[in-house]
């Protein structure tokens, strides 16, 4: 297992796309956090009660935003780790070097999880740093922030890992780079967005809408801002429930994907 794991890390770190995607998404998320949110749109001094509650979650909101953006990068990087193998047919080497296909898939999952963990930690650090830098540059001041950083980081990392596993899942099932990337972009937003028009309150039980609940800002004074904000059309779930709903979907899909990875021709 260790050789396979080391090889997956080496693959991840010796292709240009890993660095290009990581950097582009970091720059984009950094710009959003520093300029758009902290510099231009920081909360003003006169706030309603609800806006005040929201202002107390300003940093949390920015971390959520940056992690949302970077989770797409994590998903893409995870997807490309296997997509390149099929596209350039190096999968034949990977599979013959190991005596179990399961080891190969497990090594890929672990490598991706470690990379995404580090990437999300970096994202959180950048989000906090750039938020305060932007506020400082614009001269805005925030009310005391009500955020349990450890819990929130855990949620953000869960969100990032979830997207990475989704990217890897799509390429394992589809085995085509373009198709898997399209699925990664279309299913969570477009498809679920359209389905939510039909499902209304129950939309929140769709996998990616449930996942989004995980990183909703926490409850303040017994009132969940997310619940208040949650447009009544999509419903609301607590973070643990959202995580469980998503995990149920992804676990089911991975059972199918794993079986297919073991059984299908390596092409």
């Amino acid at each position, binding site marked *: 297992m260790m*050789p*396979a794991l*080391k*090889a997956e890390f*080496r*693959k991840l770190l*010796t*292709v*240009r796309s890993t660095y290009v995607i990581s950097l582009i998404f970091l720059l984009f998320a950094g710009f959003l956090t520093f300029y758009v949110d902290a510099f231009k749109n920081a909360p003003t001094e006169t706030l309603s009660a609800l806006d005040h509650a929201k202002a107390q979650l300003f940093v949390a909101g920015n971390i959520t935003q940056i992690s949302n953006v970077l989770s797409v990068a994590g998903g893409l990087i995870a997807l490309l780790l296997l997509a*390149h193998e099929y596209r*350039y*047919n*190096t999968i*034949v*080497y*990977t*599979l*013959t*070097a*190991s*005596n*179990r296909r399961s080891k190969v898939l497990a090594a890929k999952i672990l490598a991706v999880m470690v990379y995404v963990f580090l990437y999300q930690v970096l994202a959180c650090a950048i989000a906090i740093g750039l938020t305060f830098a932007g506020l400082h540059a614009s001269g805005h001041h925030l009310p005391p922030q009500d955020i349990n950083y450890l819990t929130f980081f855990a949620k953000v990392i869960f969100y990032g890992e979830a997207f990475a596993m989704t990217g890897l899942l799509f390429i394992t099932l589809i085995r085509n780079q373009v198709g898997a990337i399209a699925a990664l972009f279309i299913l969570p937003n477009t498809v679920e967005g359209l389905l939510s028009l039909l499902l209304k309150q129950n939309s929140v039980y769709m996998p990616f809408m449930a996942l989004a609940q995980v990183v909703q800002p926490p409850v303040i004074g017994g009132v969940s801002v997310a619940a208040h904000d949650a447009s009544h059309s999509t419903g609301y779930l607590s973070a643990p429930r959202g995580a469980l709903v998503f995990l149920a979907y992804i676990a089911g899909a991975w059972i199918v994907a794993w079986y297919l990875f073991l*059984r*299908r*021709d*390596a*092409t």
Partner: protein
Amino acid sequence: MIKTDNLRKKFRQKLAVDNLSFDVHTGKVTGFLGPNGAGKSTTMRLMLGLDNGTGTTTYDGKPLRAYANPSKVVGILLEAKAFHPTRSARQHLAVLATAGNVPLSRVDEVLDIVGLREVAKDKPGKFSLGMSQRLGIAAAILGEPKYLILDEPANGLDPEGIAWLRQFLRDYASADRGVLVSSHLLSEMSQMADNVIVIGKGKLIANTSIKGLVARSSIAVFVRTDNLATLEKALKTAKLDYTKQDGGLLVADVKTDEIGKLANSAKLTVLELTAQTASLEKAFLELTEGSEEFRAQPDKEVQS
């Protein structure tokens, strides 16, 4: 020894490999021949567990998955361009070495062996087909495996490269290791391989030595005598097929001894008697006749 037993693979309605069984022995280079679409590549993939079919393949009595480190058992080259185009040649091999638990120092060794040391840092996406083949061969021998399974490794190599490959594979096999190599270059195969396995439409047609394969092919004898008409009469009486050629007769499916005796019994003076030995190409074409998946129609004019 690699032993394949009843390999079978079906793609929807098409049977690509049909109960194929053969052995690849150590100490020998085994050629794998067959027309396009005969199932050579699919067979190799089945042998490696890359395709999902039926049948078994064992390496020294055990399936590949029974070995802790398969890279030490078999090295493969199934496609010349199987590499990430922007990962350098050295990094490509380093990834494979890591996966196969092979020391990274071996990477430079194999780059030296295949003559790619100078371009080790280059991205292989711009490599010629010949250079890609060399990189593929380097990947195959990385773990110093006991067996090599190579699909068309000579494609794209220049004459020097082909000569090098021929000698390399012979040397490799001579160290009590086995090599299975497919090729369309029959002249190359005749110089490279000790044994040949010929398949057509997924079925085994022949599994023999090169000499045995050629010997199995129909042979002919060219004979010239002082009286051709008498010889023709004698051949007709003996029910032998012949054609006129270069002032003599070319007699099919016969040995020189028989023609010599026939001429003697007809009291003819033999001026020339030559066995026309078949080439590997001729033998191959005869063996695989009717089993080609794709066949050109030379009589049809090209439509403008």
